[in-house]
């Protein structure tokens, strides 16, 4: 049952990847100018444009360009960046590590933190602690991430000098040193993603708390703590893991602003750079990675919710 579902999901994922690649290709064709035009910019002459287009293979018809990209992909060759001539592997290589590292640390801190705070808020709905948590998180959701980032830089790096303002790893740092260098972007992202997860956890649990079997448990005299931890939380896991998965995917693909402000070389900024330079191989590679991340994370979330909820294992 479960393995069937996983195989079907992987199949859908592959089709999705293909669709995304076609879409990305089509959209990059619609943008004004091609990689040669952008790379030469103000310095373009018809002659250099023609020479560069030939070098990059942009003089071929669009379907040939797409097919040759597909062909390369199947032989495990991601191609050459049209913007600078470096291999896509070398551009993506260390950025994947950076992105995974940061996402990992942020997840390690923010997931337990938000589940805990969400539980606390749900345990005492309407009381002072709940009020503080809900209004605090609402405020943080409303504030844009770059504002949080600049504020933390001004306070902790420029005024107090506690942590560096740019998150810049040379690759030789140990684990704790890396965490220190990345302290500000980690703090910013934890604040940004936790707020949403806390509210979702609280809402999910309170939602379950209204159902008849919880009422039954209350009537039986089960203590509120036990009800929440044993009955409500397990049933609320489905929506909570889905929100967690979406937030993790956001950490991989959507943190352009944070990467820009802290000069942290990650994947999200790379994709934006790729779009700006019409670097189709690079945009495609990033697109594939982001799509895979979403497919895998949502798959994991679904598996987790099925495991936590026996009813979903036996659909009618």
């Amino acid at each position, binding site marked *: 049952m479960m393995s069937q579902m996983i195989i079907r999901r992987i199949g859908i994922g592959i089709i999705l990847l293909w669709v995304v690649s076609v879409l990305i290709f089509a959209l990059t064709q619609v943008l004004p100018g091609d990689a040669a035009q*952008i790379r030469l*910019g103000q310095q373009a002459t018809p002659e*250099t444009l023609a020479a560069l287009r030939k070098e990059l293979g942009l003089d071929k018809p669009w379907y040939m360009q797409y097919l040759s990209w597909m062909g390369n992909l199947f032989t495990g060759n991601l191609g050459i960046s049209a913007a600078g001539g470096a291999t896509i592997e070398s551009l993506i290589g260390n950025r994947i590590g950076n992105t995974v590292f940061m996402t990992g640390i942020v997840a390690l801190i923010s997931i337990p933190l938000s589940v805990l705070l969400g539980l606390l808020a749900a345990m005492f709905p309407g009381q002072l602690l709940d009020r503080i948590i809900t209004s605090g998180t609402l405020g943080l959701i409303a504030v844009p991430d770059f504002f949080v980032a600049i504020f933390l830089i001004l306070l902790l790096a420029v005024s107090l000098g506690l942590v560096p303002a740019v998150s810049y790893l040379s690759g030789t740092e140990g684990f704790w040193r890396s965490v220190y260098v990345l302290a500000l972007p980690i703090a910013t992202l934890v604040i940004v993603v936790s707020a949403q997860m806390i509210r979702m956890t609280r809402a999910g649990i309170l939602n379950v708390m209204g159902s008849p079997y919880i009422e039954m448990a209350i009537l039986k005299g089960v203590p509120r703590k036990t009800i929440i931890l044993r009955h409500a939380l397990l049933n609320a896991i489905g929506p909570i893991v889905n929100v967690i998965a979406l937030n993790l995917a956001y950490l991989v693909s959507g943190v352009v602003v944070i990467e820009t402000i802290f000069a942290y*070389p990650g994947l999200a900024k790379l994709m934006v*750079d790729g779009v700006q330079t019409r*670097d189709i191989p690079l945009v495609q590679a990033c697109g594939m990675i982001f799509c895979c991340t979403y497919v895998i994370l949502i798959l994991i979330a679904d598996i987790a919710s099925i495991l936590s909820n026996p009813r979903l294992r036996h659909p009618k």
Partner: protein
Amino acid sequence: MTTKRPGDLGFNDLSSMDREVIKSALRQGATRREVMGYLMASGATIAAAGTIVTGAQDALAMTPKKGGQIRFAWDLHGPSDTLDPILFTSSLDYGRGRLNYNNLTRFREDLTVGPELATEWEANADVTEWTFKLRKGVEFHDGSKFTADDVVYSMKRHLGKESLSKAKVLVATVKDWVKVDDFTVKAVMEEPNAELPIILGTFHFKIVKNGTTDFSAPTGTGPYITKEFKPGVRSVHDRNDNYWNTDHEGPYVEQFEAFGITDNVARVNALLSGDIQMMAQLDPKALKQIEDSPNAEVFAVPSGAYPTISCMLDKEPGNNPDFVMGLKHLQRRDRVLKVIQKGIGAIGNDQPVGPAYGADWCKAANDPVAFPYDPDKAKSLLKKSGITGAELHVAEVSPGMTDMCLMLQRECTKVGFNLQIKKVPNDGYWGAVWMKQPMNVSSWNMRPSANIMMTLAYKSDAPWNETQWKNERFDKLLAMARAELDASKRAEMNCEAQKLCAEGSGSLISTHRAYIDAKSPKVKGFPRVPIAAFGGMEWPEFIWLDA
């Protein structure tokens, strides 16, 4: 030399406050000439002013120290970063190039060139051949010897239809490069060009090792060895202790790290908190913040770079001369300089050469400007043209561009002319809008000489002739000047060309910019060449860290 007369003041006779004012002016980038100008304006004699400035310069000068590490952050970087000289785009590329490689010639602060990998050069009688004698005993970082083969290979990469070189228009008239012997090369040209040695001092004409095709970790002869290069991430450069230049003790700094912080605010914060020691492209809005901080100071060099509004003369409405003249009379050049550029820069005269070009700038042709602010005259000219409105396409291609256009729009409204501003994204601007829409904007960096600048952007058949102004006499003057080795005759032709261009072109050039960067006060010894950011990116072998 100036001599001090009895009764004149020396630097140390001034009050400590006056001393600080002069020292800080010098530190913040005023040249000796500029400071002497201030002093003489307030009544000092030339001799006294000279003595005072020399004293202040001595007080500033200290013996350079060796060692230390400098991190510098640029405003642009990405996957298009490259170490291939013919493809250099950003000034970050230029800086990395200057760290890793050398040119044949090197720019001095007055925009003449001196020897680098070439020790001497001379032209034949009709200036169609240049012969360069090369420096002996220079080694690449990998230990191989530098010879004529490396020069011929590097230079030929700019020639021919298939060349991808971004600077090939500068050497389009060079037919061939010939090796004469191991340490002599010759450039053979189709037409005379007295400025070839100057062109070869610019960023794209770095000498790479013969046969290099992979530029992911290229060797060079430069003052620093590239240890690591990741496009869009960072590069690391270690001091080359085997550097050929023994005229000075440099290179001084142990190691450079280069990367980009594209966000303006974040870049300033990184400098203020001491995480980096140099940052490019200071937003004029942050000038005060930098000046107030003990950790940072402004490094500004007035340059010939300029933002411009172009009316294409081959399209409506630019093909109506009264319309163009009318707009030119509506430029409030002094206000653009004061408000948008915070006073740093120079007044422009609708032609591309500014005072920063030194001897190439013709005062007689440009001061006063050809079309001063005159709303009444503008009103009657616009009325005569019969045109009541126009559309200007604007992208923020240089800082303050949009504000400048809005300022022009306001002046137009005052005289009853409807100038519509259409804001378009920077993304794809050069291919989709520039030189396509009848009225558009652009931004030019400084070029090494007035002739090169005017040839690139105003020669009748130039691919980048952005206003499509065509003038036979102007073209002829440019060609004659290139063939002329006599400086005073060349200056005369230069003057006439600048006058023609100011009066005839469709460009509205209100001001010339300065390159405004910022650095830690501990980093010292910057040359001040005005052709690119941070003193022409000539700093790598000269600057040092006063720890």
